[in-house]
């Protein structure tokens, strides 16, 4: 593995963590959005609030990690993506601002109407943000980003594959969140909420699966290079993802307790790495290879050191945060 490939792997590790934890936070917003009126939605929203409050900012930092590694290790790819897909990226950034502020404000503004407005802002932007991020990923995978950047501002992402990937991002986020919330409801002893989120996890899994199936068809017609490698070198990962997904459905339907989260995470992680394998050795299929986009070696070495330090310091700290949060040692009110 070349240094550039190793840096790309680090980028993918960041993407994986963001998809899992940031994704679950977005999904929490999705379920908040569709939880119904103030009365009916009160308890699911309270559970979502409890689960998200102490962790969402830490989870959000993975996005910063991804952007920084991308622009430091692969500057031309960063620039090409930004100059081509600036419309969905700007909308995603707008969504991030509205979502974070809406969430921070909604407990503390005055009056029910204002709270609902803040809550709706949080929830609505929790759906839009992963959708636009998905269109960016879909446009990259579809090979719509030219190596020199400045691709068309609209046609590059307003086509079936990127839009399907956007929908898949939303559904997957909702699915991850529902599975996490099943566990949280169980821990809180709220049995009705547990089955509430089991039903929603199943529905989201079905939608994500359908979007993925249509995505494969579109991948076949729009991004042949990626498709061919996905069903060849990437096949074990595709199968692993499918197995995890089916396994989770079985466990959920039988009312089983374990291992929900590892299965849900496994299904998502396998897809992300399958995508990586399918694109290899391209960062922007099929115009820019990882090696061509890579920064000089000393810069890549800095990225390795940063990653090593993060593994030693950040991961255990994140573990501590999750452990405290899961053992209810952190409040959820501020």
């Amino acid at each position, binding site marked *: 593995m070349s240094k550039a490939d190793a840096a790309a792997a680090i980028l993918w590790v960041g993407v994986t963590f963001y998809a899992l934890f940031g994704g679950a936070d977005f999904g929490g917003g999705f379920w908040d959005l569709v939880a119904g009126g*103030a009365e009916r939605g*009160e308890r699911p*929203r309270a559970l979502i*609030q409890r689960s998200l409050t*102490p962790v969402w*900012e*830490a989870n*959000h*930092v993975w*996005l*910063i990690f991804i*952007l*920084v590694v991308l*622009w*430091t*290790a692969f*500057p031309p790819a*960063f*620039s090409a993506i*930004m*100059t081509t897909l*600036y419309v969905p*990226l*700007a909308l995603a*950034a707008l969504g991030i*601002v509205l*979502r*974070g*502020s809406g969430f*921070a*404000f*909604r*407990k*503390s*503004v*005055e009056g*029910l109407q204002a*709270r609902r407005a*803040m809550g709706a802002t949080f929830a609505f932007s929790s759906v839009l943000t992963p959708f636009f991020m998905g269109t960016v990923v879909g446009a990259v995978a579809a090979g719509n980003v030219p190596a020199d950047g400045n691709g068309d*501002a609209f046609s590059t992402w307003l086509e079936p594959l990127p839009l399907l990937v956007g929908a898949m991002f939303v559904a997957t986020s909702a699915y991850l969140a529902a599975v996490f919330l099943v566990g949280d409801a169980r821990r809180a002893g709220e049995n009705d909420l547990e089955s509430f989120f089991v039903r929603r996890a199943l529905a989201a899994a079905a939608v994500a699966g359908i979007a993925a199936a249509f995505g494969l068809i579109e991948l076949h017609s729009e991004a042949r290079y990626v498709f061919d490698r996905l069903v060849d070198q990437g096949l074990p990962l595709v199968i692993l993802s499918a197995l995890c997904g089916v396994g989770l459905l079985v466990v959920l339907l039988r009312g089983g307790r374990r291992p929900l989260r590892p299965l849900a995470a496994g299904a998502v992680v396998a897809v992300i790495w399958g995508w990586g394998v399918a694109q290899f050795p391209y960062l922007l299929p099929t115009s820019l290879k990882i090696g061509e986009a890579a*920064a*000089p070696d*000393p*810069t890549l070495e*800095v990225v390795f050191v*940063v990653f090593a*330090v*993060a593994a030693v310091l*950040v991961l255990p*700290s*994140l573990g*501590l*945060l999750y452990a*405290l949060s899961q053992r*209810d*040692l*952190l*409040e959820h*009110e*501020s």
Partner: protein
Amino acid sequence: MLPLDPLPLAASASNLLAAREQMAFTLGFHIVLSCLGVALPATILVANYIGLKKRDADALELAKRWSKAMAVTFAVGAVTGTVLTFEFGLLWPQFMDRFGSAFGIAFAIEGIFFFLEAIFLAIYIYGWKRLSGWAHFWSGVPMVVTGIGGAFSVVAANSWMNQPQGFTLDAAGKVVDTNAWKVLFNPATGYEVPHMILAAYMVVGFLVASIYATGMLKGRRDRLHRLGLLIPLTIGLIATPVQLLVGDTAAREVANHQPAKFAAMECIQETGSHQTEYIGGVCTANGVKFAIPIPDLDSFLVGFSVDTEVTGLNDIPADERPPANTLLHLSFDAMVGIGSALLLLGLWLAWAWWKKRDIPKTPWFLRAVAVSGAGAILALWCGWIVTEVGRQPWIVQGYMRTSEAVTEAQGIWFSFAVVILVYATIGTIAILVLRRMSRRWREAGGAEVEETGAPYGPPTAEGTA
């Protein structure tokens, strides 16, 4: 240099202006919040320490309240910081394309600090009830360290834009080698980084103190308000004299290494010794109008001798001169003036404390403290105007012009308008939320304030809020 811009010249210039305005606006908004992220943790921990060590319930209550306010400001700071991360690519893609591998080094390190800060901030903010006193205190200490580390990395990146080094270009202008150490510790790091960290402590110290001074002026003279005034004010007042020394050094370094910036901010037209220092005024090509001139002082400040030669704008090529010299000059003067006024405020408090072990009795002292927070923020903005506008027309001093870095994407004026609207809204709501928190604490009079129920449950839950 890059090939010619494919956009028509006028459209390109308009794009550049829009991108610069949007960057300035979003940075100006975020930098106040990032000061809170850098320096509020230490301020809170001082109160927390006093509370635990001396069993001081008021100090502990202050630490709790401030940490709850920080939960709001950190959230808004995190998302507005993310916008800046996007903007590097959305507004300045050519800069990132060419120099990301060097400039990015500092930011890669910042990532770790931001991560750790977000994690321990969450543990500290939400750990008040169920973590034991000292364990909880220590869980907050990493916030202080990572706040300073984060400020170091981000400002080192900015320092590098002012005094770039640690990279090798090939004939095509592509970065082919980098030296992380030289990027991080470029000549401007040594003064820009401490200048910004001290600025953060000043902004937080004076801002928090100004809130309690306002309360005391309204007749709330309880011990909580006294402590709430004294703890942050002391921090701000300790930082101020050090800041003036660092700032003085910074100005001299700028004179030596970025003569164009220095000439513009001091309105020096002709190179020579015995330069006059102008206080205030309007910069014109024929000299400074409406200013208070102090003969020879500028030369003396740059080289400790009136014979020191200082470069004037006449020795800078016309297309390398910073724009808006009057703005630069007045910003610089305002920053120095506010810093000096804050120093006097500190001396006033120190004198009263030495005489009577008390804050000065006159309401004028409280009035001065009440405006010191806004003053410190204004000085912060002025300082960044000097740094950033003074570096123009360069984005990477001497290597890349800002006009070469800007995106060709259309619609930047539109995005700028959206940004103004959104930021004005969230800024207003943030202030309303913080005021509402403060009012509730006051009404509860020290009793535990608890928000229960769903984030926007039915009206019955509203009754407890």
